[in-house]
């Protein structure tokens, strides 16, 4: 028991675990506090000040992403002062880059846009002065748009401390700080392995997936929790689809600490599923006739298979049939093939390509 405490947020009493931050407790309870640099998987960075709150008895505003809860703490998240600071932060970002949301991949799924919406900022009050930088489209899978970067540093921490690929860092060019790959190479020529972790944590549209561009707006996507079909780590994936087509994958964020992949993916799990959408997927049974594989109905194909199996079993015994089950199909399906071989045909000639 007693690692629980009570605290008050915006006049409501909540129970929390010792060690949690105010931001985490607020989020767990559906209270909106923006966080542009903090992400559950990259931790607190203390850079953006978007998460400021007021705590009774403490002077000044506090960063809730780094503030541990205490017994009987009284926190306010929506005072006038806080709203002023938030507005200011949004306006600064909006005037320091090109945050034109209309055709952005992140529209509807952007943390800066959310924050602007909550603060009621429609356009910055400061004059927008910005030299448009070129997009970096050199990578097969990822588009970098530094005009939208808010320099929160999430991508850098994720690349260096989550997936450990050590590609990204902050660098300076003509006096401006920006995110660079290696010693400022185009992403596609850098040591980036295109795991896409940086894209997944970026709060804005500065990093996006190339293959998703123009394919679907966020609101049109359906999210489903699946597992990766490639290696034995079996990463948990939130697969985004539209009109029965794969669009992109994110490592599952919910419960990420418990999952085998802790929210991460590799290039195969990230980009490797567009084979599902391919036109050359098999969509009809084929039967060899006069040396050629020709289309057949399911009934015809299944009858042929069953009768051939029975005939060969009759003639040469059950041991003349062999079954290769698959390291790629589910447990239930493997079990079904196993029962077919042993319980229906009567042979132990069943194996799979784990050996190969």
């Amino acid at each position: 028991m007693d690692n629980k405490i009570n605290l008050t947020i915006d006049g409501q009493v909540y129970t929390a675990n010792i060690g949690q931050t105010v931001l985490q407790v607020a989020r767990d309870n559906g209270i909106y506090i923006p966080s542009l640099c903090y992400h559950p998987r990259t931790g607190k960075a203390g850079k953006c000040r978007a998460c400021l709150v007021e705590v009774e008895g403490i002077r000044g505003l506090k960063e809730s992403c780094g503030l541990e809860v205490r017994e009987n703490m009284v926190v306010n998240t929506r005072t006038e002062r806080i709203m002023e600071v938030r507005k200011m932060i949004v306006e600064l970002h909006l005037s320091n880059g090109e945050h034109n949301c209309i055709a952005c991949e992140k529209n509807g799924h952007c943390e800066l846009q959310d924050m602007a919406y909550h603060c009621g900022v429609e356009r910055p009050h400061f004059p927008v002065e910005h030299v448009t930088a070129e997009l970096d489209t050199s990578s097969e899978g990822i588009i970098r748009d530094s005009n939208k970067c808010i320099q929160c540093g999430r991508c850098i921490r994720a690349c260096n401390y989550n997936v450990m690929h050590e590609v990204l860092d902050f660098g300076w060019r003509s006096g401006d700080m920006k995110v660079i790959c290696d010693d400022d190479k185009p992403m596609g020529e850098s040591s980036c392995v295109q795991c896409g972790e940086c894209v997944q944590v970026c709060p804005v549209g500065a990093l996006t997936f190339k293959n998703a561009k123009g394919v679907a707006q966020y609101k049109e996507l359906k999210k489903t929790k699946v597992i990766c079909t490639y290696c034995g780590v079996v990463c948990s994936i939130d697969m985004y689809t539209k009109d029965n087509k794969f669009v992109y994958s994110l490592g599952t964020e919910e419960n990420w600490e418990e999952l085998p992949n802790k929210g991460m993916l590799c290039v195969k799990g990230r980009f490797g599923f567009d084979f599902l959408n391919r036109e050359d997927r098999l969509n009809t049974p084929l039967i060899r006739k006069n040396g050629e594989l020709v289309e057949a109905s399911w009934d015809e194909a299944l009858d042929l298979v069953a009768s051939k199996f029975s005939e060969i079993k009759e003639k040469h015994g059950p041991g003349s049939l062999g079954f290769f089950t698959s390291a790629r199909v589910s447990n239930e399906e493997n079990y079904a093939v196993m029962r077919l071989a042993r319980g229906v045909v009567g042979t132990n000639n069943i194996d799979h390509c784990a050996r190969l």
Partner: protein
Amino acid sequence: MTNSMQEADKGNVILVIGTNTTWNHPVFGGMIKKAVKEKGIKLIVADPRDIGLSKIADIHLTQNPGSDTALLMGMQHIIIKNNWHNKEFIAERTEGWDEYAKSLEFYTPEKVSELCGISVEDLNATAKLYATAGRGAIYYAMGITQHSHGVDNVMACACLQMILGNYGVPGTGVNPLRGQNNVQGACDMGGLPNVFTAYQPVINEDARKKFADAWGVKYEFLDDKVGQTVTTMVENAGDSIKCLYIVGENPMMSDPNQNHARHQFEKLDFIVVQDIFLTETAQIADVVLPAAAFAEKYGTFTNTERRVQYSFKALNPPVGAKYDHEIVAEIAKRMGCLDFPSTVEELYSEIRKLTPSYAGISYERIMNKAGLRWPCPTEDHPGTPILHGAKFSRGLGLLKAITYRPPVEYANNEYPLTLTTGRLLQHYHTGSMTRRSKVLHGITPSGYVEINTVDAAKLKIKNGETVKVSSLRGSINITAKVTEKIKKGVVFIPFHFAETAANILTNDAYDPVAKIPEYKVCAVKIEKI
């Protein structure tokens, strides 16, 4: 795996052997890297190539392909000579010690150094670091198993861990990294010639009775002899094997000595292939059945750490394709088995009834959650992240002498180079899925042969040049990648690419017990064309 992936940072030292983890299990490769860089865990990498992890390793051994048994036994020789072994663990948890210790005499540092092509100093340093750093974990993959003596390699790993007492606690264990997402599940479900689900032996009468009862067949109906493996089924094609039913595999591409494999398949009376694409194997089938792919169905999959996870259905399969289990049930019914389970739920509840280690894993417990690691016998059991806590499955761990066996084929005058094969980061197995992916294909469209700078200079081969690689079994033309990242005398070819198929060259000699072919070592020559 005896232990879990999350424990990578819980021990003191890690031995990575026969796995290019950052390419083949990339997310876990990152976890090992994190453990080493942030927690200061010591890392030993044993691999003839420079791999992602060797850059951060405390020791990188480039042993000759096929010499792993010698390396692992040689380490134990040194450990015992220096009295670094765990006497208490050996006395309490193992048997066969005296004879085993004697058998290690053979593996003197000098002999092992010669067999492995590494220095005595490096060998000593490795043994010392691994034995004295504290808790040690071994991670390995097909680099250990795909040899004509793969079982010896696995046993050598297990014995090394036994004499050091590296079992049952976090950050230890013998941890094979499974190459395909549901290898573990396919094995657990009895997709093996010798066992039903949960490794219940087919030669055991009680097990046969139990399954016969559950399936409503006569006890005598069930085959009471161990069946054939994929390797022997291909070998016996046309003789004892007349017909193959192949679900979601592409053995024409993945089998060693491809020309021979094709010849074998041609001898069969009837081949059924059930898959999502017209793979190389489907092209030679008599009947091809179109199946649904992974995200188009729901069900459970078991990862390399025995974690059973539930996958939801994200997409509809192509119109005209059917689910694998549906097809199997249809065939069963047409063969007269009218009560064959036809839904995923029915199948899973049957699995739970017959499989003690899965009995406690209900769908409800793993849907939208992180899954459970078997054994999980009851619905209130929390699952088992670490195996062999208090005792081994067989009781006492068996320390069994291992006689050194070299690879079947050596580099020789005519074929002076040693070929080893494997995967790339961007591709998977026979490439039928990844080569159809735009981004993955975009990054790596074709195969190549890696050759050491010195060997290339001798042959006057330049980087990017097309060369001819031949073994006793066949030859391929392929682009040369000249690099210092591979040991002299060794060449590497990824096996994903049909047009430059490494498996035209590989040797189909296999381990007498595991029946796993020797993909990792064969002799080749390279010529300019």
